[in-house]
């Protein structure tokens, strides 16, 4: 989570450059409180976004493992499903409460925004609320229904969790898209009229943002879970054996991430074209285009490829692109932060794509070798494993940083607007004094929360599953899931005997 903190700092550090604070003519919030409100929103949202990603992806891979266990009766799949289900239960709860904080912050930090525009995008949140309700209900049934439902019914109750999770993420994303491309209302003498909530929801930015973020969240979840098992496999490797439980625990989530990585490149291309067409200031900041000119080079970190940006965007090496100098000074975003975070996202995205390609190649080679040499082929993949695994162990953190960097890019790139072109962020902030104290407390609480979450997950991982139903004085007599026998009992033979 320290990456989140760093990014929140970065977002905050950038804010003075945004300029609006020079004019305190609006509300009464002091510059320090305004900054604190932005920092708090960035920090809590950055925290929630990682948990929400896992909340979308982890039930999906859990169901995948459970489905395999139902099909094959293989106890290793059942054990993976059980472990992931328990981790998903903990992370879902932390995600639910950290999401609630965001709902409060909408009003406690940005009442000006809610007052004026709450009704325009509110319907999307109502839909999100319904989806989240369904998700929470079925999460309860799925987590605690292991003993009370047939294995097939238990599997089925997980499906609404995944579907509702995807829907609820998409609905939330429509609101952020709306902040980038506000639609579905008219301003007459500063008052909102002619509200069309569906037009607001299906604004032009919605499709690209929703697909981009959902793919990102699947990558984050897949790579994070895989990196846990990559570490375990490295340990296995040193011990000279490969545990099948670890191998499958790695392969399922890693494959999810690896499949999404190339798709994300395509969607990312769609996204940058969309930003170029619709938010010129954000685009100029992301690509570091300072002056409007023809034949713009592609500048990335320390190198520069002449004419490449014009070529990539317009398929014409001499096309003219609008630069930051075409944007009035008082509506320019802090370009340095936007560019740097954009570059971090691109660099890590490319690295993850390379890792996914490595995995695909190794998989293909292994298949070919296995075809030629039968069982022997299985051993061929071992020599590359340690280096692959070391890299894969970092993939989870890399994916999370990439996502935070991407989020920073779009959020800071929209500044100084909270609603693009319509409402400035400082018009929205709560004018009551003392917001910075709220930030300090939130930082403290979330630091403890992050440490506790990680420590709980680590302890859960170490705790061996009970092999037999526990007796009367078990530490958790109240948790029915713990009474389920651990291995093998969910195979077909046993189930048919119920």
């Amino acid at each position: 989570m320290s990456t989140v903190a760093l990014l929140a700092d970065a977002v905050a550090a950038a804010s003075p450059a945004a300029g609006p604070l020079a004019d305190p003519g609006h509300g009464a919030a002091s510059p320090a409180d305004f900054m604190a409100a932005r920092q708090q929103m960035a920090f809590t949202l950055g925290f929630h976004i990682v948990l929400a990603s896992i909340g979308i992806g982890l039930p999906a891979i859990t169901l995948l493992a459970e489905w395999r266990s139902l099909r094959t009766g293989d106890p290793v799949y059942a054990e993976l499903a059980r472990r992931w289900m328990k981790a998903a239960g903990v992370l879902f709860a932390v995600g639910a409460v950290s999401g609630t904080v965001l709902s409060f912050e909408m009003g406690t930090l940005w009442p000006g925004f809610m007052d004026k525009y709450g009704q325009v995008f509110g319907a999307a949140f109502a839909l999100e609320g319904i989806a989240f309700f369904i998700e929470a209900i079925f999460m309860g049934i799925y987590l605690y229904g292991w003993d009370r439902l047939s294995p097939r019914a238990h599997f089925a109750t997980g499906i609404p969790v995944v579907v509702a999770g995807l829907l609820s993420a998409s609905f939330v994303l429509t609101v952020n898209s709306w902040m980038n491309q506000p639609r579905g209302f008219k301003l007459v003498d500063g008052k909102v009229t002619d509200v069309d909530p569906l037009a607001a929801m299906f604004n032009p930015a919605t499709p690209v943002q929703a697909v981009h973020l959902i793919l990102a969240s699947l990558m984050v979840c897949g790579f994070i879970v895989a990196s846990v098992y990559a570490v375990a496999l490295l340990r296995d490797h040193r011990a000279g054996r490969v545990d099948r439980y670890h191998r499958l625990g790695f392969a399922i989530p890693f494959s999810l991430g690896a499949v999404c990585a190339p798709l994300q490149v395509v969607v990312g291309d769609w996204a940058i074209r969309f930003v170029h067409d619709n938010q010129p200031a954000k685009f100029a900041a992301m690509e570091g285009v300072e002056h409007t000119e023809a034949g713009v080079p592609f500048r990335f970190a320390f190198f520069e490829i002449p004419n490449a940006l014009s070529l990539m965007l317009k398929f014409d090496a001499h096309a003219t692109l609008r630069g930051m100098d075409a944007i009035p000074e008082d509506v320019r975003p802090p370009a340095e932060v936007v560019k740097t975070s954009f570059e971090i996202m691109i660099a890590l995205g490319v690295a993850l794509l390379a890792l996914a390609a490595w995995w695909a190649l190794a998989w293909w080679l292994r298949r070919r070798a296995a075809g030629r040499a039968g069982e022997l082929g299985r051993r061929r993949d071992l020599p590359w494993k340690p280096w692959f695994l070391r890299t894969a162990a970092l993939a989870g953190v890399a994916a999370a940083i990439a996502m935070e960097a991407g989020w920073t890019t779009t959020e800071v790139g929209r500044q100084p607007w909270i609603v693009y072109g319509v409402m400035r962020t400082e018009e929205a902030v709560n004018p009551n004094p003392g917001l910075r104290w709220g930030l300090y407390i939130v930082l403290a609480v979330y630091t403890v929360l992050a440490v506790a979450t990680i420590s709980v997950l680590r302890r859960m991982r170490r705790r061996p599953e009970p092999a037999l139903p526990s007796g009367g004085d078990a530490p958790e007599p109240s948790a029915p899931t713990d009474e389920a026998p651990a291995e093998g009992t969910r195979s077909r033979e046993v189930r048919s005997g119920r």
Partner: protein
Amino acid sequence: MSYADIALGLILLGLSAYLLFGGADFGAGLWHLVSRRRTDKDVIEHAMGPLWEANHVWLIFVMVLTWTAFPPIFADVTARHWVPLSLAALGIVGRGSAFVFSKAVPDRSRYRWVFGVSSVLTPYCLGAVAAAVATGEGSWLGAAGVYGGVLTTALCAYLAAVYLIWDARRLADDGAALRFRGYALLSGAAVGLFALPGAAALGVHSPLILLSAAAGLTSLVLIVRRAYLAVRVTGALAVVTVLWGAAEMAGLDLDAAAAHDAVLQVVFAALGVGALILVPSMTWLFVLFQRAAPKQRP
């Protein structure tokens, strides 16, 4: 009936559900903190386990509906009362995460402590804000705010004790059932004695007071007579009428604050369709876990 009235009705419905279900979970956290006995804590954890997250979503429902249907009121209340509301939000964080943490790693006692304390902090803060809004008093630290905070916390504790008697019996823990019965009688009498003079002092002249008092007295009789399922209904009625009375007092200018009809139409349609899925699935959730503990899977 205007769209604003329907929206207000839905918000009150959501608030009532949050108080009756989510509130009882907070009250259970208070008893978890107070009780020294492991078996009581087990009953509480078992009863809350699969349900608390769904119960919590009622709060999200209320907030979303309020900011969509009455944006200026939402903005005004949250901006003015940002301190207690932020504390409540952090209390929700502490309560929820500490609860799942202590289930996942039962050997760590500090999570149970955080769970208990934040279960008291959250309803206090929310109740204080509710009272400050209802009476029009400026601050949550004023007399009405403090009174509302204490009353809400006590109502939650009473509800939890009433519900937990049945849960303890369901889990075949007669000792715990007897203790929760004692807690329910004590907290019921105390909260009744606390609520009625308060209502008089705040100048509430609603017939709801009589209804609440009658339901409260009936509940005490039912508890004494061990009608533990019936008392869930009367106990809930005694508590929820307090909320309705407070809502009656608030006197907010809703029509001026209401969102456009086009917005409310979409929201109502969404809720109508959503209810078709939500109501059966929530019923299933409650029924599934109200049944006696399952036979162990072979």
